[in-house]
């Protein structure tokens, strides 16, 4: 329900001042046309009080029933009806009050059409203001709901994107642990530890949270250590990152899916030992991360972005409204994924939380 304009102090002040001006105006006008001060004041007061009552009625009515766009002529009829009622009531009161004053009665009858048109004009203006007020109220309310819904949808989507932790990864890791328990219990214990820390990371971090590159790389290392246990000597990684950019920021949990994609692509597309490379650097106001993996150009046709990268792209789009932050390139037998993370916008995101 829209709040009534009368609940706003400024509106109340304007409303009162306007009516005082109209009252004064009418008194002077009537006096100018030959009424005594006393008659002019009584006449104007009766009329203005009735008009104010009519206005309050309009505010109440429109609060509960705001006509649709095509039904605005209803409003016009209301205006006319209310004006007629106001004039009739004014007439009854004033004619009774001044029934012995011949001169006033003649003046009243002569001025009736002027009164009708004036009151109609005033009421019309007022109805217009009220309608505008309520429409504006309704729209801003709708806007709030729309924004809320949008935000919820966005959060749900981001949550979903992040939850796509591969069941393959989890079950195969558990399987490796089972194998280690028999032969190398110390390593099994370590791997359980790493897997737990990794899983805790996916649960704890929030979607809009920004972390430093250092934190993200530490987290990534957990993942890589687990994968290395799983795949043994087949998988090696090389991470190049200058310490000077350790404090640059990026959205939490962004690198792991990219790495996962590269590892899968590399491991399942060749039977050799592979090396996955990650290089982080600073370019203008962007943190640039390049991930490379080998692939076999003869048997696979990298279709732009794999599924893992699609979700990264989608996430960056939801955060920055830009589609140009993820790019891929296949050259000879090396597939390169590059992502850019703008550094200036993160401040506002941080503050929003």
């Amino acid at each position, binding site marked *: 329900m829209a709040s009534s304009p009368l609940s706003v102090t400024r509106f109340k002040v304007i409303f009162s001042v306007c009516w005082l001006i109209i009252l004064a105006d009418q008194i002077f006008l009537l006096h100018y046309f030959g009424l005594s001060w006393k008659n002019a004041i009584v006449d104007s007061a009766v009329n203005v009080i009735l008009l104010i009552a009519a206005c309050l009625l309009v505010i109440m009515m429109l609060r509960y029933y705001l006509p649709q766009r095509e039904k605005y002529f209803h409003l016009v009829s209301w205006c006319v009806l209310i004006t007629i009622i106001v004039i009739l009531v004014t007439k009854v009161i004033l004619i009774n009050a001044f029934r012995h004053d011949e001169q006033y009665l003649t003046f009243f009858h002569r001025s009736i059409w002027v009164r009708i048109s004036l009151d109609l004009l005033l009421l019309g203006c007022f109805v217009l203001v009220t309608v505008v007020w309520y429409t504006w109220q309704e729209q801003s309310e709708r806007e709030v709901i729309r924004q809320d819904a949008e935000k919820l949808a966005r959060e749900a989507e981001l949550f979903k994107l992040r939850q796509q932790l591969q*069941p*393959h990864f*989890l*079950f*195969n890791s*558990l*399987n*490796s*642990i*089972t*194998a*280690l328990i*028999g*032969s190398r219990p110390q390593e099994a214990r370590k791997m359980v530890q790493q897997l737990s820390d990794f899983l805790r990371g996916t649960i704890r971090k929030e979607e809009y949270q920004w972390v430093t590159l250092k934190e993200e790389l530490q987290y990534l290392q957990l993942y890589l250590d687990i994968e290395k*246990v*799983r*795949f*043994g000597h*087949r998988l090696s990684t090389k991470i190049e990152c200058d310490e000077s950019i350790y404090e640059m920021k990026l959205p939490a949990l962004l690198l792991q899916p990219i790495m996962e994609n590269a590892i899968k692509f590399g*491991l*399942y*597309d*060749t*039977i050799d030992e592979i090396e996955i490379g990650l290089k982080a650097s600073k370019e203008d106001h962007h943190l640039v991360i390049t991930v490379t993996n080998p692939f*076999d150009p*003869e*048997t*696979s*046709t990298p279709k732009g972005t794999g599924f893992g990268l699609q979700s990264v792209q989608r996430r960056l789009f939801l955060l920055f409204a830009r589609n140009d932050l993820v790019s891929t390139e296949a050259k000879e037998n090396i597939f390169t994924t590059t992502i850019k993370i703008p550094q200036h916008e993160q401040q506002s995101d941080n503050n929003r939380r």
Partner: protein
Amino acid sequence: MIIIDDEPLARSIVVEYLQNFPDLTVAQVCSNGFEGVKAIQQYKPDLIILDIQMPKINGFEMLELIENPPAVIFATAFDEYAIKAFEAHAIDYLLKPFNQERFEKAIKKWRDTKNQSGEKQTRQLLEDVSLTAPQSERIVIKDGSKIKIIPVQDVHYLEAADDFVKVFTKEGYFLKNKTMSHFEQVLDPNQFVRSHRSYIINLQQITRIDPYEKDSHVAVLRSGAKVPVSRTGYPKLRSILGL
């Protein structure tokens, strides 16, 4: 028997569990499908324990390459679409991680069914899996001692040849022991059309369609090859090409 899995620890646990079966000898452990094919041909094992997600060619594709596949126990972490097929046809399937008890149960099951035809079961399984799997993106073929992986977009056309299908590419053709209707089902129908009882064409390869004798046409491909289009195949081609 032979164990095929790309993860070393996954292989080692199977070896460990097998210590309780002194009568079973592991001929070889393999880390991918290529090694698997070779080892199976060399040792002709009674049983293989096979992972599905593996480099280059997956477990199913590997089995397709073997003429007389042995009995198979699958060991996999998670494979939504294949599980139904396992339930129907595999000797057993093990969901990783599995314990010793579960593993021994699978071996026992295999021994109980040993007398039945494992090969037929495995064939049926492969057919089911390839039909329920998402559209094929590659065709795996054995070419002599080499294994050829052909991305489907590199296929020009397919031709029926007795019990085989000739898969034509720019390097000539390769033989695959499948049926035409199998390919018709597993290939993307928007890209591959059965233009004739004995032919399936890759639409992207067609340069033009010429009339040929009465009632029939011939599709000319980029490679210059001419592929017959039958009376019933012609309207199919036209509607998909939007003519």
